[in-house]
């Protein structure tokens, strides 16, 4: 994977992931500003990708890592904070999950 041998790409990717993490922790206004910064970073990352003429698949992978990191951070946040805070909703979820299945499973 040649793409990851370029420090500038690695630094940009590390910065993007770090901003994802910080944006998930801070309050709404700061989070919004960080999100905009991150979007600009995503766009800036296009420059080295075009300059060094990487294979498209490798360039896609860089963005996939960013999206994966963002989703993972959101998921961890959900597991740590939201799930506990919204315990009732979780129970509701389980109810709809199994309830529906069992109802249909009785027949077919």
């Amino acid at each position: 994977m040649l793409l990851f041998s370029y420090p500038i790409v690695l630094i940009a990717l590390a910065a993007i992931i770090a901003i994802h993490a910080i944006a998930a922790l801070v309050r709404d206004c700061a989070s919004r500003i960080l999100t905009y910064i991150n979007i600009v970073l995503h766009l800036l990352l296009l420059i080295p990708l075009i300059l060094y003429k990487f294979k498209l698949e490798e360039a896609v992978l860089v963005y996939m890592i960013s999206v994966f990191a963002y989703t993972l951070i959101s998921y961890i946040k959900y597991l740590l904070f939201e799930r506990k805070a919204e315990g009732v909703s979780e129970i509701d979820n389980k109810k709809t999950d199994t309830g529906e299945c069992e109802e249909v499973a009785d027949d077919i």
Partner: protein
Amino acid sequence: MTFNSWEFLLFYPIVATLYFVLPKKLKWQMLLIASYYFYMCYQAELVFLIFGTTLISWLSSNMISRTESKGVKKLWLTLTLIICLGVLFFYKYFNFLSGSVSGLISYFGGEPSRVVLDLVLPVGISFYTFQTLSYVIDVYRGEVEVERNFFFYALFVSFFPQLVAGPIERPGNLIPQLKEPKRFNSADAKKGAKHMIVGFFKKVCVADALSLYVNEVYNAPTEAGAIAIIIATVMFAVQIYCDFSGYTDIAIGCARVMGIKLMKNFDHPYLATSIKEFWSRWHISLSGWFKDYLYIPLGGSRCRKWRHLLNLFIVFLVSGLWHGAAWTFVIWGAIHGVYQIIGNLTAPWRDKLVCKLGFSKTSPVVVWVRRAVVFILVCFSWLFFRANSMSDAVVLLKSLFVSGWGVTLGDNLALMGLDAVGIVMSILSVLTLIMIDKLLVYEDVEDGSDVLVKNGSFIYFVWMILFVWATLLARDVTSTFIYFQF
């Protein structure tokens, strides 16, 4: 005009904007015109079929509601079933039946005379035929009030988000919503947009990306080794889920933006702990249709054991045939029918075995072992579903169980075109998908807060989708949705 086309990206915002801008009386008329335009973008020449099916089912439902005589009601229902299913049969199954009969004749040494008609399969015919039939049957049973306005009924049949690949909506759910147009609601728009983005992510970033590797194996079955077949089949399991549930997510999202709630069609099917449960989580609208209009009329489970098992088998055989006019689909349906029968017969023994081993039925070990077994069984059936023909399926099975183990892992991966970037991409996209699914379920609960997308961060997903889309376009590999062919 598929959901993943540039034309749709232009079409949908125009329709959604008009829906909110136009006066209440004109909203549904605009939706009807837009829906027919949407359909005609696929096959303008076959629009008369959907119109004809709509007209016949509307006429007969009105006749059913006007008469008190049970015999006359039954006559109209039978007539509708014959005509609607006849059209479906002619366009979808005529060549298949003709080919099968001539094959059978030549097998017994006769002189085959195969009649092949130059027929184009109308897009979404299985979906809209089933939707119209459910309406007429519900009117016949007195479960739904008849719709007197033909054009309004035509909108129910042709509503564009769910027209070509479902969910197969029930009249009781969709018609009242179409009759009560909603004003713009930012919460609905936000939820709808989120569903659409997730749907596009599933389709473009996961399904289309995985299809590259799956096609390499299934289009050259004689060269594939056992490991390549296993990897490609597991990838196809993910691909077809993302393709179809991605379509459903986009359909649900499109309708939700306009304040219309379509039914859920998927509920984490690969987390099912039995085949029975799998079918209550996969293509829920079709499973529900078969349950209400085929399984229960056949006698359901309230009959003798052998008859109950036969009913199950018939339902899954018909379900296989519904998916496509080819023996691979029939076998796929039959395999699921056999799974259901074996599952039903062995359920008490399996429960006893779990107890003897000292586990409870709900212990995580038992649940995950059952999930793994169900996933393997479902993957085995996907092999037939994806194979291009029965002879290809036989070659793949032979390679999988007999001759294909001599090929090295490196050669298998090379055949699939799967390099390090492809492997990492595939793993990351599937892991992302699993987390998104979990977060979406949480957020869909009315009081669930936004975890997945907030402060404009959905742009990451849009960015990702556009990037992968552009990459696939550059390689000329964007595909249509798999379920369109059904």
